[in-house]
C-alpha cells in the first residue's frame, strides 16, 4: 500500500518551509497543495479546524497541524536521515531550543520587521537572536545539530533566509554580520544544505512579498 502524503501550504511561509525541508531531507514523495489564504480550501478547514492555518500534513488521510509537531511526526514515521537525536537529553535540548526560537526569536524578529526596524524592536530582536549566537559560539558547532542539521536548524529557517529578504525589501538591518558572526556563518552553511536549498522559495518572491506587506507607500 503506497503512502499518500500531502502538504497544504503557501510557498512564502517559513512554517510551511520547515515541513518541506523535513520531507525533502527524508526523500518523501508528496503532493504540495497550494492554498490561497484569502480563500482557504474546504479541505484545509476540515483538516485544521482549530487554527485554519498552514502547514497541514495529510498522511493517508490523517491530518497533522503545527509545523514543529509535523516535523517530529515526519521524523518518527520515516527513518533515514535523523532530524532529532536519539538520546533523551539531547532530544530535550533540541526541543528546548526549537521552543526558544518560536517563543522568543520569532515574535521579536517579526516586530523588528513589521515596525520597519524601529530601534527598540530591533534591540529586542537582537536580544533574542543573541541566545542563538551564544549557543553556536559556546558549542563551537557548524549547525545547531552539530555536523548535520537537526530540528533546531529547521526551526530557525526564517533566521537564515526570511530575515535577509525582509532586510533587503525594507532597507533595514536586523542580523548584522559584525554583531552575529556565528549566526551569519550558520545561515550561509544552512541555506547551502541540499535539502534546504531545494525547499526554499525564490528569494525575489520573498523580497517582493515583504515590500508589498510591510513596505512604506
Amino acid at each position: 500500500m503506497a503512502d499518500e502524503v500531502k502538504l497544504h501550504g503557501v510557498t512564502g511561509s517559513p512554517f510551511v518551509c520547515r515541513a518541506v525541508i523535513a520531507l525533502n531531507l527524508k526523500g518523501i514523495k508528496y503532493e504540495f497543495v497550494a492554498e490561497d489564504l484569502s480563500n482557504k480550501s474546504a479541505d484545509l478547514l476540515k483538516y485544521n479546524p482549530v487554527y485554519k492555518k498552514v502547514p497541514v500534513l495529510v498522511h493517508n488521510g490523517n491530518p497533522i497541524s503545527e509545523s514543529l509537531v509535523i516535523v517530529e511526526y515526519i521524523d518518527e514515521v520515516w527513518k533515514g536521515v535523523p532530524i532529532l537525536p536519539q538520546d533523551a537529553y539531547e532530544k530535550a535540548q533540541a526541543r528546548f531550543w526549537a521552543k526558544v526560537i518560536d517563543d522568543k526569536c520569532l515574535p521579536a524578529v517579526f516586530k523588528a520587521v513589521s515596525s520597519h526596524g524601529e530601534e527598540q524592536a530591533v534591540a529586542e530582536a537582537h536580544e533574542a537572536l543573541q541566545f542563538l549566537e551564544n549557543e553556536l559560539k559556546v558549542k563551537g558547532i557548524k549547525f545547531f545539530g552539530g555536523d548535520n542539521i537537526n530540528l533546531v536548524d529547521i526551526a530557525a529557517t526564517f533566521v537564515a533566509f526570511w530575515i535577509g529578504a525582509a532586510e533587503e525589501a525594507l532597507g533595514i538591518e536586523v542580523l548584522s554580520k559584525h554583531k552575529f558572526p556565528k549566526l551569519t556563518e550558520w545561515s550561509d552553511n544552512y541555506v547551502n544544505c541540499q535539502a534546504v536549498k531545494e525547499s526554499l522559495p525564490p528569494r525575489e518572491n520573498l523580497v517582493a512579498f515583504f515590500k508589498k506587506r510591510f513596505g512604506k507607500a
Partner: protein
Amino acid sequence: MFKKSVNKGMEKVKLFATWSSPFVKRIIWALKLKNIEHEIIYEDLANKSPELLKYNPIHKKVPVLVHNEIPICESLVILEYIDETWKDAPRPLLPKDPLDKANQRFWAKFSDDQVLPSFYGYIMKQGNEKEEAKETTLAHLKRVEQLLSEKKFLSGESVGFLDLVFGWLAENSRPLEVVTGLKLFDEDSFPNLCAWRDKFLEVPAIKESWPDQETLIAKYQEINLSKGK
C-alpha cells in the same frame, strides 16, 4: 554549559518549583506516576535562587528538572524527557503511535497557547474583557469536551501526557468557584469535562500531590483577601 555524564548508580532528581504554577504541577504528577524519587525546591519568584538562574538562564522560570546535575527546562519538554528516560515505569505517558503522539502534542500546545491564557484573562480581567475571555475559554473548552467524547481520559484508557497537560483545568476549577464564585463550566454543558475532572483528581498520584484541593482553596482565599476584595 552542562556536560551529560554517564548515569550509573543513584539517580538524583530535583525539581525547582512554585506551589501555584500549573506548569510545575504537571511535572510533580509525572514524577509521582512514574514513581521517581525526587526533591522539590520551592522558589520565591521575587527572589530567585542562584541555582535556578544558573539552571535556566534564558527564561529564569520554573519548572526546571535537574537530573544528575543536568537541567531540563520547559514543562512539555520535561514531560517528554521523563517519559523517554524512565520508559514504561510503570507505563508510558505518551502513546507509541506517531499519529496519536502528534495529536497529543497538538492539543498540549492548544492548552498552553490558547486555553490557559484565555482562562487567566477570564480570572484577571474585568467587565467586557472578562466576558470576552469567558466566551473564548468556553469555545476552547468545547473542543476539549469533544476530545473526551469517546475516551475516559484525554490520553485514552488511563491517565497520561495530555491529562497532565490539561490537569491545571481539573485542579483549579472547583477552588476557583469556591473562592471567587466564578463557575466556568457546569455538568449540563460539559458533562465529559466534569466527569474527566473528577476521575483525574481521584487518580492516586494526583490526589496525593501537594497542594491538594483544600490547600489550594485556602491559599487562593488568602490571595483574594490580601487583594482587599
